[in-house]
């Protein structure tokens, strides 16, 4: 089976990869959008003082 990989996805903010699996006729059988990116803000914000949140969470997305 043929596979088309788009890596990385471009012209957007964020990281991504697309895998498209083709059937024998060349049509799309399945396509997967993968996000190969995780920083863990949900975890490392826990327990930090409230005044740190505007400083830290604005760095989730700088766009």
């Amino acid at each position, binding site marked *: 089976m043929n596979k088309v990989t788009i890596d990385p996805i471009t012209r957007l903010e964020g990281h991504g990869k697309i895998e498209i699996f083709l059937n024998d006729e060349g049509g799309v059988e399945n396509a997967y959008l993968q996000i190969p990116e995780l920083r863990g803000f949900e975890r490392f914000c826990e327990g930090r003082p409230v005044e*740190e949140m505007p*400083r830290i969470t604005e*760095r989730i997305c*700088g766009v």
Partner: protein
Amino acid sequence: MTKLKLALYWASSCGGCEIAVLDTNEKILDVVAIADIVLWPVAVDFKYHHIEAMPDSAIDVCLFNGAIRSSEHEKVAKLLRAKSKVMAAFGSCACFGGIPSLGNLTNRAEIFHTVYEEAPSNENPSRTVPKTATTVDGHHLELPETYDTVMTLEQVVPVEYFIPGCPPTVDLILKVVSALANNSLPPPGTVIASDKSLCEECYRKKEDKKITRVWRPHQIVPDPEKCLLEQGVICCGPATRGGCGALCIKANMPCEGCFGPPAGVLDQGAKLVSAIASIYQASGEEDVSRMLDEIVDPVGRFYRFGLAHSLLRRKRMTPPGTLSAAKQPLAEVTAR
């Protein structure tokens, strides 16, 4: 004149460094006048295979932003290093680990648990967490490995220049562009900012180097003319490299430390601890204990942008053996 080949890449980052490049406004035309962009995922459509197909050292300069958080970041850093004559760590995350390196106070298993199993917005009864390889409907899919420990760019590849800031200021970016245009880059190893501490370029009056308590932001409205640290507000200025023009200070906010340690300072947090300890008026153990209570979250305050680059590097991994070890042992940390 042959145009330079320029690559811009983001690893573990927020995209703010890309926006800082765009904040140069019409000066961005100076960049495209001297350089062809061969990779810049946010703005132009080139794929990794285009870079892989290039001969080694085909790229003149790579501005690499973001920390190294996963095997993909490390792989692309090594690929771009091989293809680039000059590698520059662009922004605090690439230089020092940045905010993402606060993740070094935890580890992959804890992050996955919180993000995929505990987060109240998730519906995940099968408790699925990311795997490096999986098969779905007969299709083999792969994801990069998320590391336990966030690293700086220099911890995975040799780096010629460091352009600090969260994000680097437009002035610094234009300085780099001008150096590229005139072929006048400084000696390798240079941090493109001031060599001195932020205090050297801070306009505030410094008079009485004595404090009797530390205030949190909601407890005090600081005098906009006086040194913040002398008012008992923790300002990272004494332990932070200048070059930003004291942007946060002008907004009556303390320096957050995003430019990393100044020249000659090995550990930003230790330097700041030393600065605070030298002005805090403590006459006994009781005062010291009160001071420690007043400084909430010391590691987050003192290493906000630079835990990966610091001597501490990360929280100790426990229990040993149950989680994959940090990429490099602490003993291998060397000073720049």
